[in-house]
């Protein structure tokens, strides 16, 4: 009988907003003791399912663990440095913002942690510390808190942070390194220390596609799937990301609409281009595996807050992300377009929501 009632026993009440509940909990204690019970009154429904905001966020964090492991394997200490820095600065920014606005703390909902990890995973591994911190501050301050905090931002905070860095430091943000070769210099302190002293610079698979790229030695699909290529921290390994994605889908934290829309439209777009001019354009499967396509489709575009409300809208939104990404990749000057397309569609999401809101069963209320 208890199974269908939401109640996290181990849950700690940390923030002030739940103080009221604290009091209510105390009242409940009293009720048990008192002979004349004080019956709780509340509006219905009196049951709820188990999902909470915090659980949704923790699900995303759990889903990103495999990608984190691969990131450490591929990029070494840099992976830990970037993630740690992002975490600390994102959480600090959110904390300070709440302090200034005299609002109860919101670190407990874990949304800042998710933002930090996604931001870290979308940065080039050798990005200097000051830029990482600046990006985190921009992500939380401009991307989220200035709009009012969790649930009220229009744009994905992590992508705002990355876009800020991309436009502020275009050179740093497009400096890529080859994966760490553990066999050769795992003992060498430089590799462990991580700074780009010994790191070998290497173009990402997508950069190689652009005209004027020095080495057009495209990696084979297997390399893309495992993820030992250069690129942003967490986006390289398709298999690790898919593992987490399956977890998210199974937990119903995300639905299939956005990823399917985005990946499907990207494949169709790339496929048409490939069939039209196979010499000029590459195999669509390559586009699927390279760059942030998988990462974006399952972890960034599916951000609940900045995507449309209705399922139909989400499908449209996903298709928009996919098409815009491929437009930038194939016609634009930038090699990668996932971030730009997602930000663009974030901007369009309110309009999509507005025009895809379903009519009630039985039609609109007659005036």
């Amino acid at each position, binding site marked *: 009988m208890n199974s269908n009632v939401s109640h996290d026993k181990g849950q700690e009440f940390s923030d002030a907003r739940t103080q009221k509940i604290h009091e209510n909990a105390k009242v409940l204690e009293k009720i048990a003791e008192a002979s004349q019970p004080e019956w709780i009154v509340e509006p219905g429904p009196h049951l709820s399912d188990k999902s909470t905001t915090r659980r949704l966020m923790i699900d995303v964090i759990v889903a990103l663990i495999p990608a984190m492991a691969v990131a450490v394997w591929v990029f070494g200490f840099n992976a830990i440095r970037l993630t740690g820095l992002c975490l600390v600065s994102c959480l600090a920014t959110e904390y300070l913002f709440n302090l200034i606005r005299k609002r109860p703390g919101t670190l407990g909902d874990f949304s800042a942690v998710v933002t930090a990890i996604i931001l870290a995973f979308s940065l080039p591994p050798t990005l200097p510390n000051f830029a990482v911190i600046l990006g985190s501050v921009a992500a939380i301050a*401009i991307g989220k808190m200035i709009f009012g905090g969790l649930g009220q931002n229009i744009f994905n905070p992590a992508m705002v942070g990355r876009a800020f860095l991309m436009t502020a430091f275009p050179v740093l943000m497009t400096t890529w390194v080859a994966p760490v070769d553990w066999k050769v210099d795992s003992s060498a302190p430089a590799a462990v220390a991580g700074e780009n002293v010994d790191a070998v610079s290497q173009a990402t698979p997508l950069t190689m596609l652009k005209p004027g790229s020095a080495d057009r030695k495209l990696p084979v699909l297997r390399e893309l799937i495992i993820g030992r290529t250069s690129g942003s921290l967490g986006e390289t390994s398709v298999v690790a990301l898919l593992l987490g994605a399956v977890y998210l889908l199974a937990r119903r934290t995300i639905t299939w609409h956005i990823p399917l829309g985005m990946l499907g439209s990207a494949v169709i777009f790339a496929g048409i281009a490939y069939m039209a001019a196979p010499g000029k354009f590459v195999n669509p499967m390559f586009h699927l595996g390279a760059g942030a396509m998988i990462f974006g489709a399952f972890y960034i575009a599916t951000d609940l807050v900045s995507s449309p409300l209705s399922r139909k809208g989400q499908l449209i939104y996903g298709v928009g992300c996919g098409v815009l990404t491929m437009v930038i990749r194939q016609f*634009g000057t930038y090699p990668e377009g996932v971030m*730009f*397309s997602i930000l*663009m569609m974030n901007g369009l999401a309110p309009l999509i929501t507005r025009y895809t809101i379903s009519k009630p069963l039985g039609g609109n209320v007659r005036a």
Partner: protein
Amino acid sequence: MTSDLIFVFITAAIINNFIFKYFLGICPFLGVSKRTDMAMGMGFAVTFVMTVAGVLTWIIYHMILVPMNIQFLQYITFILVIAGTVQLVEMYVRKFFPNLYESFGIFLPMITTNCAILGACLFIQKFEYNLIQAAVFSLGGGLGFAMAITIMAGIREELNFSDVPRYFKGPAITLISAAILAMAFSGFLIKR
């Protein structure tokens, strides 16, 4: 030729979006972006006037000013043409299409001082477009403006539900959203 026109159109509408690249028409962008339907009305009014003005000024510039060698009068003539056209169109619409006026005409007086229109006319002469290109350019620019202002209106309607800090309510948060949108638009750099 066609691809060239398409390129002119896309450049005007997206890559060099009047708002996010040239900052033209920011005043209505901030002022009339509170509701989606109003923003659409404004967007289409601007598109209409911009196309008409673009073509008219091209004709005046190339048919009158250049042959008579009095290009230094272009600012004055352009603005006179725009102001006159707008006022005539407004009166006409108000008299004969009162319903249309309610939804779209009320924006017309504001368009006279919309720098996007004059800006478009100046850019047309600066880029030395021919008449067809001029028409396509001004149409694209107008639609780009309409798109930007409608997106912003959608965002602002959504922001009504948000707990934005008091001092950032209204124009400030709109500008910050515009900054992020400008970052997104900057990704659409397309080399010819």
